[in-house]
Protein backbone atom coordinates (compact mmCIF):
# COMPACT_ATOMS: atom_id res chain seq x y z
CA UNK A 1 0.00 0.00 0.00
CA UNK A 2 1.24 3.48 -0.87
CA UNK A 3 0.12 6.32 1.41
CA UNK A 4 -0.94 9.64 -0.09
CA UNK A 5 -1.69 12.44 2.35
CA UNK A 6 -4.48 14.98 2.22
CA UNK A 7 -1.83 17.72 2.08
CA UNK A 8 -0.40 16.18 -1.10
CA UNK A 9 -3.87 16.07 -2.61
CA UNK A 10 -4.71 19.66 -1.61
CA UNK A 11 -1.48 21.13 -2.97
CA UNK A 12 -1.84 19.18 -6.22
CA UNK A 13 -5.42 20.40 -6.71
CA UNK A 14 -4.41 24.00 -5.88
CA UNK A 15 -1.69 23.89 -8.53
CA UNK A 16 -4.05 22.34 -11.09
CA UNK A 17 -6.78 24.98 -10.73
CA UNK A 18 -4.30 27.82 -11.13
CA UNK A 19 -2.52 26.29 -14.12
CA UNK A 20 -5.80 25.39 -15.83
CA UNK A 21 -7.01 28.98 -15.57
CA UNK A 22 -3.83 30.58 -16.95
CA UNK A 23 -2.66 28.12 -19.62
CA UNK A 24 -4.95 26.98 -22.39
CA UNK A 25 -4.19 23.30 -23.10
CA UNK A 26 -2.08 22.49 -26.14
CA UNK A 27 -4.89 20.54 -27.87
CA UNK A 28 -7.21 23.57 -27.69
CA UNK A 29 -4.56 26.02 -28.91
CA UNK A 30 -3.71 23.69 -31.80
CA UNK A 31 -7.38 23.31 -32.75
CA UNK A 32 -7.81 27.11 -32.71
CA UNK A 33 -4.71 27.55 -34.89
CA UNK A 34 -5.95 24.92 -37.35
CA UNK A 35 -9.37 26.58 -37.48
CA UNK A 36 -7.79 30.01 -38.04
CA UNK A 37 -5.90 28.59 -41.03
CA UNK A 38 -8.89 26.94 -42.65
CA UNK A 39 -11.61 29.50 -41.80
CA UNK A 40 -12.57 31.37 -44.99
CA UNK A 41 -14.52 34.23 -43.38
CA UNK A 42 -12.05 37.07 -42.78
CA UNK A 43 -13.77 38.42 -39.66
CA UNK A 44 -14.04 34.90 -38.19
CA UNK A 45 -10.35 34.30 -38.90
CA UNK A 46 -9.41 37.52 -37.06
CA UNK A 47 -11.49 36.54 -34.05
CA UNK A 48 -9.77 33.14 -33.87
CA UNK A 49 -6.38 34.91 -33.88
CA UNK A 50 -7.65 37.24 -31.11
CA UNK A 51 -8.59 34.21 -29.01
CA UNK A 52 -5.07 32.84 -29.50
CA UNK A 53 -3.65 36.28 -28.58
CA UNK A 54 -5.71 36.26 -25.34
CA UNK A 55 -4.07 32.96 -24.42
CA UNK A 56 -0.63 34.52 -25.01
CA UNK A 57 -1.45 37.35 -22.56
CA UNK A 58 -2.82 34.92 -20.00
CA UNK A 59 0.12 32.51 -20.05
CA UNK A 60 2.39 35.30 -18.78
CA UNK A 61 0.72 34.47 -15.48
CA UNK A 62 -1.01 37.59 -14.17
CA UNK A 63 -4.43 37.52 -15.86
CA UNK A 64 -6.62 34.40 -16.10
CA UNK A 65 -7.86 33.43 -19.59
CA UNK A 66 -11.43 34.39 -18.71
CA UNK A 67 -13.07 36.25 -15.84
CA UNK A 68 -15.35 33.25 -15.37
CA UNK A 69 -12.80 30.98 -13.76
CA UNK A 70 -15.56 28.48 -13.34
CA UNK A 71 -16.74 25.94 -10.90
CA UNK A 72 -14.06 23.26 -10.43
CA UNK A 73 -15.16 19.87 -11.73
CA UNK A 74 -12.75 17.21 -10.52
CA UNK A 75 -12.53 13.57 -11.55
CA UNK A 76 -10.40 11.43 -9.26
CA UNK A 77 -9.33 7.89 -10.10
CA UNK A 78 -7.97 6.17 -7.00
CA UNK A 79 -5.67 3.22 -7.45
CA UNK A 80 -6.51 0.16 -5.35
CA UNK A 81 -2.95 0.12 -3.92
CA UNK A 82 -3.35 3.60 -2.45
CA UNK A 83 -4.18 4.42 1.14
CA UNK A 84 -5.45 7.98 1.57
CA UNK A 85 -4.55 9.65 4.84
CA UNK A 86 -7.39 11.99 5.75
CA UNK A 87 -10.67 13.01 4.12
CA UNK A 88 -10.29 13.20 0.34
CA UNK A 89 -13.32 15.48 -0.17
CA UNK A 90 -12.00 17.96 2.39
CA UNK A 91 -8.53 17.78 0.84
CA UNK A 92 -9.84 18.53 -2.65
CA UNK A 93 -12.00 21.42 -1.45
CA UNK A 94 -9.08 22.80 0.55
CA UNK A 95 -6.97 22.70 -2.64
CA UNK A 96 -9.69 24.45 -4.63
CA UNK A 97 -9.99 27.15 -1.97
CA UNK A 98 -6.20 27.73 -1.89
CA UNK A 99 -5.89 27.79 -5.68
CA UNK A 100 -8.74 30.23 -6.22
CA UNK A 101 -7.43 32.53 -3.46
CA UNK A 102 -3.73 32.48 -4.29
CA UNK A 103 -4.28 32.47 -8.07
CA UNK A 104 -6.49 35.59 -7.98
CA UNK A 105 -9.36 33.61 -9.50
CA UNK A 106 -13.00 34.61 -9.26
CA UNK A 107 -15.15 32.94 -6.63
CA UNK A 108 -18.26 31.98 -8.56
CA UNK A 109 -20.05 29.52 -6.29
CA UNK A 110 -23.24 30.58 -4.50
CA UNK A 111 -26.13 29.05 -2.58
CA UNK A 112 -28.76 28.18 -5.23
CA UNK A 113 -31.63 29.86 -3.36
CA UNK A 114 -30.19 32.68 -1.24
CA UNK A 115 -27.54 33.31 -3.97
CA UNK A 116 -25.04 34.05 -1.21
CA UNK A 117 -21.49 33.50 -2.48
CA UNK A 118 -19.59 30.85 -0.49
CA UNK A 119 -16.49 33.05 -0.91
CA UNK A 120 -14.14 30.13 -1.51
CA UNK A 121 -15.34 28.70 -4.85
CA UNK A 122 -16.22 25.54 -2.94
CA UNK A 123 -17.76 23.05 -2.81
CA UNK A 124 -16.15 21.69 -5.96
CA UNK A 125 -17.96 19.08 -8.05
CA UNK A 126 -16.11 15.87 -7.22
CA UNK A 127 -16.43 12.51 -8.98
CA UNK A 128 -14.48 9.64 -7.40
CA UNK A 129 -13.84 6.29 -9.04
CA UNK A 130 -11.62 3.29 -8.38
CA UNK A 131 -8.95 1.86 -10.65
CA UNK A 132 -5.93 -0.43 -10.20
CA UNK A 133 -2.39 0.58 -9.29
CA UNK A 134 -0.45 2.73 -6.79
CA UNK A 135 -1.49 6.22 -8.03
CA UNK A 136 -4.24 8.78 -7.86
CA UNK A 137 -5.11 10.49 -11.14
CA UNK A 138 -6.76 13.91 -10.80
CA UNK A 139 -8.41 15.50 -13.82
CA UNK A 140 -9.88 18.96 -13.65
CA UNK A 141 -12.07 21.09 -15.82
CA UNK A 142 -12.98 24.62 -14.73
CA UNK A 143 -16.34 25.09 -16.33
CA UNK A 144 -17.80 28.54 -16.89
CA UNK A 145 -21.56 29.03 -16.59
CA UNK A 146 -22.01 30.77 -19.94
CA UNK A 147 -21.56 27.47 -21.70
CA UNK A 148 -22.81 25.20 -18.91
CA UNK A 149 -26.17 27.05 -18.96
CA UNK A 150 -26.63 26.04 -22.61
CA UNK A 151 -26.09 22.34 -21.96
CA UNK A 152 -29.14 20.08 -22.22
CA UNK A 153 -30.41 16.60 -21.47
CA UNK A 154 -33.23 14.73 -23.16
CA UNK A 155 -34.73 11.37 -22.35
CA UNK A 156 -35.30 10.17 -25.91
CA UNK A 157 -36.80 6.84 -26.98
CA UNK A 158 -35.28 4.10 -29.15
CA UNK A 159 -37.47 5.16 -32.10
CA UNK A 160 -35.74 8.57 -32.16
CA UNK A 161 -32.55 6.78 -33.22
CA UNK A 162 -29.44 8.39 -34.68
CA UNK A 163 -31.42 11.04 -36.57
CA UNK A 164 -33.11 12.14 -33.36
CA UNK A 165 -29.80 12.30 -31.54
CA UNK A 166 -28.11 14.38 -34.26
CA UNK A 167 -31.07 16.78 -34.42
CA UNK A 168 -31.05 17.24 -30.64
CA UNK A 169 -27.30 17.94 -30.57
CA UNK A 170 -27.45 20.41 -33.48
CA UNK A 171 -30.52 22.16 -32.01
CA UNK A 172 -28.78 22.51 -28.65
CA UNK A 173 -25.81 24.20 -30.33
CA UNK A 174 -28.17 26.42 -32.33
CA UNK A 175 -29.87 27.52 -29.12
CA UNK A 176 -26.47 28.32 -27.57
CA UNK A 177 -26.02 30.61 -30.58
CA UNK A 178 -23.65 33.49 -29.98
CA UNK A 179 -24.15 33.47 -26.20
CA UNK A 180 -21.84 30.76 -24.94
CA UNK A 181 -18.52 31.76 -26.59
CA UNK A 182 -18.16 29.69 -29.76
CA UNK A 183 -16.29 27.97 -31.29
CA UNK A 184 -17.64 25.26 -29.05
CA UNK A 185 -16.38 21.89 -28.00
CA UNK A 186 -19.42 19.67 -27.78
CA UNK A 187 -19.48 16.73 -25.38
CA UNK A 188 -22.25 14.21 -25.97
CA UNK A 189 -23.25 11.36 -23.68
CA UNK A 190 -25.51 8.71 -25.15
CA UNK A 191 -27.00 5.88 -23.10
CA UNK A 192 -26.74 4.82 -19.48
CA UNK A 193 -29.54 6.59 -17.63
CA UNK A 194 -30.40 10.17 -16.73
CA UNK A 195 -27.39 10.99 -14.54
CA UNK A 196 -24.95 8.75 -16.40
CA UNK A 197 -25.47 10.33 -19.82
CA UNK A 198 -24.77 13.77 -18.29
CA UNK A 199 -21.60 12.47 -16.70
CA UNK A 200 -20.48 10.85 -19.97
CA UNK A 201 -21.01 14.16 -21.79
CA UNK A 202 -18.92 16.02 -19.21
CA UNK A 203 -16.18 13.40 -19.09
CA UNK A 204 -15.83 13.37 -22.86
CA UNK A 205 -14.45 16.93 -22.61
CA UNK A 206 -11.32 15.52 -20.99
CA UNK A 207 -10.53 13.38 -24.04
CA UNK A 208 -8.67 16.13 -25.90
CA UNK A 209 -9.96 18.35 -28.70
CA UNK A 210 -9.74 16.78 -32.14
CA UNK A 211 -9.39 13.25 -30.79
CA UNK A 212 -12.10 11.07 -32.29
CA UNK A 213 -13.64 8.04 -30.60
CA UNK A 214 -11.81 4.76 -31.02
CA UNK A 215 -15.16 3.14 -31.88
CA UNK A 216 -15.56 3.46 -35.65
CA UNK A 217 -19.33 4.03 -35.71
CA UNK A 218 -19.09 6.60 -32.91
CA UNK A 219 -16.25 8.48 -34.66
CA UNK A 220 -18.40 8.62 -37.80
CA UNK A 221 -21.26 10.08 -35.76
CA UNK A 222 -18.91 12.69 -34.24
CA UNK A 223 -17.73 13.68 -37.68
CA UNK A 224 -21.32 13.99 -39.00
CA UNK A 225 -22.39 16.14 -36.03
CA UNK A 226 -19.36 18.42 -36.41
CA UNK A 227 -20.14 18.98 -40.08
CA UNK A 228 -23.80 19.76 -39.40
CA UNK A 229 -22.93 22.12 -36.52
CA UNK A 230 -20.43 23.99 -38.66
CA UNK A 231 -23.10 24.48 -41.31
CA UNK A 232 -25.11 26.58 -38.81
CA UNK A 233 -23.01 29.64 -39.62
CA UNK A 234 -22.79 30.89 -36.03
CA UNK A 235 -19.01 31.20 -36.26
CA UNK A 236 -16.42 32.35 -33.71
CA UNK A 237 -18.13 34.44 -30.98
CA UNK A 238 -21.30 34.39 -33.08
CA UNK A 239 -20.16 36.82 -35.76
CA UNK A 240 -20.64 34.33 -38.59
CA UNK A 241 -18.22 31.87 -40.21
CA UNK A 242 -17.61 28.17 -40.66
CA UNK A 243 -16.05 27.52 -37.28
CA UNK A 244 -18.96 27.04 -34.87
CA UNK A 245 -17.43 24.00 -33.16
CA UNK A 246 -13.86 22.72 -32.96
CA UNK A 247 -14.76 19.19 -31.96
CA UNK A 248 -17.64 16.88 -31.06
CA UNK A 249 -16.87 14.08 -28.63
CA UNK A 250 -19.34 11.29 -28.04
CA UNK A 251 -19.22 8.71 -25.26
CA UNK A 252 -21.71 5.86 -25.18
CA UNK A 253 -22.88 3.25 -22.71
CA UNK A 254 -25.57 0.58 -22.89
CA UNK A 255 -29.00 1.64 -21.67
CA UNK A 256 -32.44 0.16 -20.92
CA UNK A 257 -34.27 -1.36 -23.91
CA UNK A 258 -36.94 1.33 -23.58
CA UNK A 259 -34.55 4.31 -23.22
CA UNK A 260 -32.25 6.55 -25.18
CA UNK A 261 -30.90 9.18 -22.77
CA UNK A 262 -28.82 11.90 -24.47
CA UNK A 263 -26.90 14.75 -22.83
CA UNK A 264 -25.12 17.59 -24.61
CA UNK A 265 -22.44 19.48 -22.74
CA UNK A 266 -21.56 22.78 -24.37
CA UNK A 267 -17.98 23.87 -23.71
CA UNK A 268 -16.77 27.37 -24.68
CA UNK A 269 -13.54 27.99 -26.62
CA UNK A 270 -11.71 28.59 -23.35
CA UNK A 271 -11.72 24.85 -22.71
CA UNK A 272 -9.65 24.62 -19.59
CA UNK A 273 -8.76 21.12 -18.51
CA UNK A 274 -5.71 19.55 -16.93
CA UNK A 275 -4.74 16.18 -15.47
CA UNK A 276 -1.98 14.94 -13.23
CA UNK A 277 -1.06 11.86 -11.24
CA UNK A 278 0.23 11.55 -7.70
Amino acid at each position, binding site marked *: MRTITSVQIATTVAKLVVEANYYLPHDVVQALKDAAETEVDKKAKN*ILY*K*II*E*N*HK*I*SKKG*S*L*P*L*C*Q*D*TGIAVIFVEIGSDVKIEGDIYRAINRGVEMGYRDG*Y*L*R*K*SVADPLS*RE*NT*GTNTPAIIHLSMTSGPNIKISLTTKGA*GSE*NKSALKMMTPADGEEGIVNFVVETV*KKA*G*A*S*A*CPPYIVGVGIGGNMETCALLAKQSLLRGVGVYSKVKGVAKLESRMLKEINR*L*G*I*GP*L*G*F*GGNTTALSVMVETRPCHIASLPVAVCIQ*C*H*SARHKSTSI
Partner: protein
Amino acid sequence: MKRITAPLDQDTIDDLEAGDEVLISGTIFTMRDAAHARVVELIRTHKKLPFELANQVIYYCGPTPARPGNPIGSCGPTTSSRMDSFTPLLLEHGIKGMIGKGERSTPVKDAISKNGAVYFSAMGGLGAEYARAVKSSDVVAFPELGPEAIYRLEVDDFYAVVIDDAKGNDLYSQYHFS
Protein backbone atom coordinates in the same frame (compact mmCIF):
# COMPACT_ATOMS: atom_id res chain seq x y z
CA MET B 1 -13.88 51.49 -36.49
CA LYS B 2 -15.71 54.27 -34.68
CA ARG B 3 -14.33 55.93 -31.54
CA ILE B 4 -17.03 56.80 -29.02
CA THR B 5 -17.15 58.15 -25.48
CA ALA B 6 -19.21 56.86 -22.54
CA PRO B 7 -21.55 58.11 -21.10
CA LEU B 8 -23.24 58.25 -24.52
CA ASP B 9 -24.96 61.27 -26.05
CA GLN B 10 -27.90 60.80 -28.39
CA ASP B 11 -26.03 61.95 -31.52
CA THR B 12 -23.39 59.29 -30.94
CA ILE B 13 -26.04 56.58 -30.49
CA ASP B 14 -27.99 57.67 -33.57
CA ASP B 15 -24.83 57.44 -35.65
CA LEU B 16 -24.25 53.78 -34.70
CA GLU B 17 -25.37 50.96 -36.99
CA ALA B 18 -25.64 47.24 -36.25
CA GLY B 19 -22.33 45.70 -37.30
CA ASP B 20 -20.22 48.77 -36.52
CA GLU B 21 -17.01 48.06 -34.65
CA VAL B 22 -16.36 50.61 -31.91
CA LEU B 23 -13.65 51.59 -29.46
CA ILE B 24 -15.24 52.90 -26.27
CA SER B 25 -13.41 55.29 -23.97
CA GLY B 26 -14.70 56.92 -20.80
CA THR B 27 -16.73 55.62 -17.86
CA ILE B 28 -18.81 52.42 -17.78
CA PHE B 29 -20.40 50.50 -14.89
CA THR B 30 -20.31 46.73 -14.35
CA MET B 31 -23.60 45.11 -13.39
CA ARG B 32 -24.56 41.46 -13.56
CA ASP B 33 -27.32 39.24 -12.18
CA ALA B 34 -27.31 40.16 -8.48
CA ALA B 35 -26.67 43.90 -9.01
CA HIS B 36 -29.50 44.04 -11.57
CA ALA B 37 -31.93 42.50 -9.08
CA ARG B 38 -30.89 45.04 -6.44
CA VAL B 39 -31.00 48.13 -8.66
CA VAL B 40 -34.40 47.15 -10.07
CA GLU B 41 -35.67 46.71 -6.50
CA LEU B 42 -34.36 50.20 -5.60
CA ILE B 43 -36.16 51.67 -8.62
CA ARG B 44 -39.43 49.92 -7.73
CA THR B 45 -39.27 51.10 -4.13
CA HIS B 46 -38.25 54.66 -5.16
CA LYS B 47 -34.97 54.52 -3.24
CA LYS B 48 -31.73 56.29 -4.07
CA LEU B 49 -29.72 54.58 -6.81
CA PRO B 50 -26.00 53.90 -6.46
CA PHE B 51 -25.23 55.97 -9.57
CA GLU B 52 -27.09 58.32 -11.89
CA LEU B 53 -28.42 56.10 -14.71
CA ALA B 54 -28.96 58.80 -17.36
CA ASN B 55 -26.88 58.16 -20.52
CA GLN B 56 -24.76 55.51 -18.81
CA VAL B 57 -23.35 52.30 -20.28
CA ILE B 58 -23.65 49.07 -18.30
CA TYR B 59 -21.11 46.31 -18.79
CA TYR B 60 -22.29 42.77 -17.96
CA CYS B 61 -19.11 41.65 -16.25
CA GLY B 62 -17.82 40.18 -13.01
CA PRO B 63 -14.02 40.56 -13.00
CA THR B 64 -11.45 38.35 -11.33
CA PRO B 65 -9.70 39.94 -8.31
CA ALA B 66 -7.03 42.48 -9.25
CA ARG B 67 -3.46 41.57 -8.39
CA PRO B 68 -1.65 44.20 -6.31
CA GLY B 69 -0.71 47.11 -8.56
CA ASN B 70 -3.16 46.17 -11.34
CA PRO B 71 -6.38 48.16 -11.91
CA ILE B 72 -8.42 45.00 -12.47
CA GLY B 73 -8.23 41.28 -13.18
CA SER B 74 -9.63 39.53 -16.25
CA CYS B 75 -12.85 41.22 -17.29
CA GLY B 76 -14.62 39.88 -20.37
CA PRO B 77 -18.39 39.99 -20.93
CA THR B 78 -20.98 37.62 -19.49
CA THR B 79 -24.14 36.35 -21.22
CA SER B 80 -26.58 39.24 -21.71
CA SER B 81 -29.82 37.28 -21.95
CA ARG B 82 -29.77 36.62 -18.18
CA MET B 83 -30.37 40.37 -17.69
CA ASP B 84 -33.25 40.52 -20.20
CA SER B 85 -36.04 40.57 -17.62
CA PHE B 86 -34.49 43.64 -15.93
CA THR B 87 -33.36 45.58 -19.01
CA PRO B 88 -36.53 47.37 -20.24
CA LEU B 89 -37.00 49.06 -16.84
CA LEU B 90 -33.39 50.23 -16.77
CA LEU B 91 -33.73 51.64 -20.29
CA GLU B 92 -36.84 53.54 -19.20
CA HIS B 93 -34.76 55.02 -16.39
CA GLY B 94 -32.03 56.37 -18.62
CA ILE B 95 -29.52 53.62 -19.37
CA LYS B 96 -28.38 54.15 -22.97
CA GLY B 97 -25.90 51.38 -23.63
CA MET B 98 -25.24 47.80 -22.65
CA ILE B 99 -22.20 45.65 -23.33
CA GLY B 100 -22.36 41.86 -23.03
CA LYS B 101 -22.41 38.83 -25.30
CA GLY B 102 -25.10 36.95 -27.19
CA GLU B 103 -28.66 37.51 -28.32
CA ARG B 104 -31.32 39.63 -26.57
CA SER B 105 -35.04 38.90 -26.25
CA THR B 106 -37.62 40.61 -28.44
CA PRO B 107 -38.91 42.82 -25.56
CA VAL B 108 -35.33 44.01 -24.94
CA LYS B 109 -34.73 44.74 -28.63
CA ASP B 110 -38.02 46.67 -28.75
CA ALA B 111 -37.07 48.62 -25.61
CA ILE B 112 -33.67 49.47 -27.13
CA SER B 113 -35.20 51.10 -30.21
CA LYS B 114 -38.05 52.71 -28.24
CA ASN B 115 -35.61 54.38 -25.85
CA GLY B 116 -32.97 55.27 -28.44
CA ALA B 117 -30.34 53.02 -26.87
CA VAL B 118 -27.73 50.57 -28.16
CA TYR B 119 -26.53 47.05 -27.33
CA PHE B 120 -22.93 46.04 -27.97
CA SER B 121 -21.21 42.67 -27.86
CA ALA B 122 -17.72 42.47 -26.49
CA MET B 123 -15.55 39.43 -27.29
CA GLY B 124 -16.55 36.57 -25.01
CA GLY B 125 -13.79 34.61 -23.32
CA LEU B 126 -11.13 37.26 -23.90
CA GLY B 127 -10.94 38.40 -20.29
CA ALA B 128 -7.16 38.85 -20.21
CA GLU B 129 -7.26 40.98 -23.37
CA TYR B 130 -9.99 43.25 -21.93
CA ALA B 131 -8.00 43.92 -18.75
CA ARG B 132 -5.65 45.97 -20.93
CA ALA B 133 -8.48 48.39 -21.83
CA VAL B 134 -9.32 49.18 -18.20
CA LYS B 135 -7.34 52.04 -16.69
CA SER B 136 -8.97 52.11 -13.25
CA SER B 137 -11.77 50.46 -11.32
CA ASP B 138 -13.53 51.15 -8.06
CA VAL B 139 -16.51 49.61 -6.31
CA VAL B 140 -19.47 52.01 -6.22
CA ALA B 141 -22.09 49.70 -4.67
CA PHE B 142 -22.75 46.32 -3.06
CA PRO B 143 -19.15 45.35 -2.12
CA GLU B 144 -20.60 42.36 -0.27
CA LEU B 145 -21.47 40.84 -3.67
CA GLY B 146 -17.76 40.38 -4.44
CA PRO B 147 -17.42 39.90 -8.22
CA GLU B 148 -21.08 40.89 -8.61
CA ALA B 149 -20.59 44.34 -7.05
CA ILE B 150 -21.03 47.42 -9.23
CA TYR B 151 -17.62 48.66 -10.38
CA ARG B 152 -17.03 51.97 -12.11
CA LEU B 153 -14.46 51.37 -14.84
CA GLU B 154 -12.44 53.97 -16.70
CA VAL B 155 -11.78 52.42 -20.08
CA ASP B 156 -9.64 53.33 -23.03
CA ASP B 157 -10.27 51.84 -26.50
CA PHE B 158 -12.55 49.09 -25.25
CA TYR B 159 -13.46 47.03 -28.36
CA ALA B 160 -17.09 46.09 -29.03
CA VAL B 161 -19.47 45.49 -31.93
CA VAL B 162 -22.94 47.06 -32.27
CA ILE B 163 -25.50 44.25 -32.23
CA ASP B 164 -28.78 46.16 -31.75
CA ASP B 165 -28.88 49.79 -32.87
CA ALA B 166 -31.42 52.48 -31.99
CA LYS B 167 -33.14 52.07 -35.37
CA GLY B 168 -34.16 48.51 -34.55
CA ASN B 169 -31.53 46.68 -36.63
CA ASP B 170 -30.15 43.44 -35.20
CA LEU B 171 -26.77 42.14 -36.37
CA TYR B 172 -27.41 38.53 -35.37
CA SER B 173 -30.51 38.36 -37.58
CA GLN B 174 -28.14 38.52 -40.57
CA TYR B 175 -26.75 35.16 -39.66
CA HIS B 176 -28.25 31.84 -40.55
CA PHE B 177 -28.71 30.69 -36.94
CA SER B 178 -30.86 33.56 -35.74
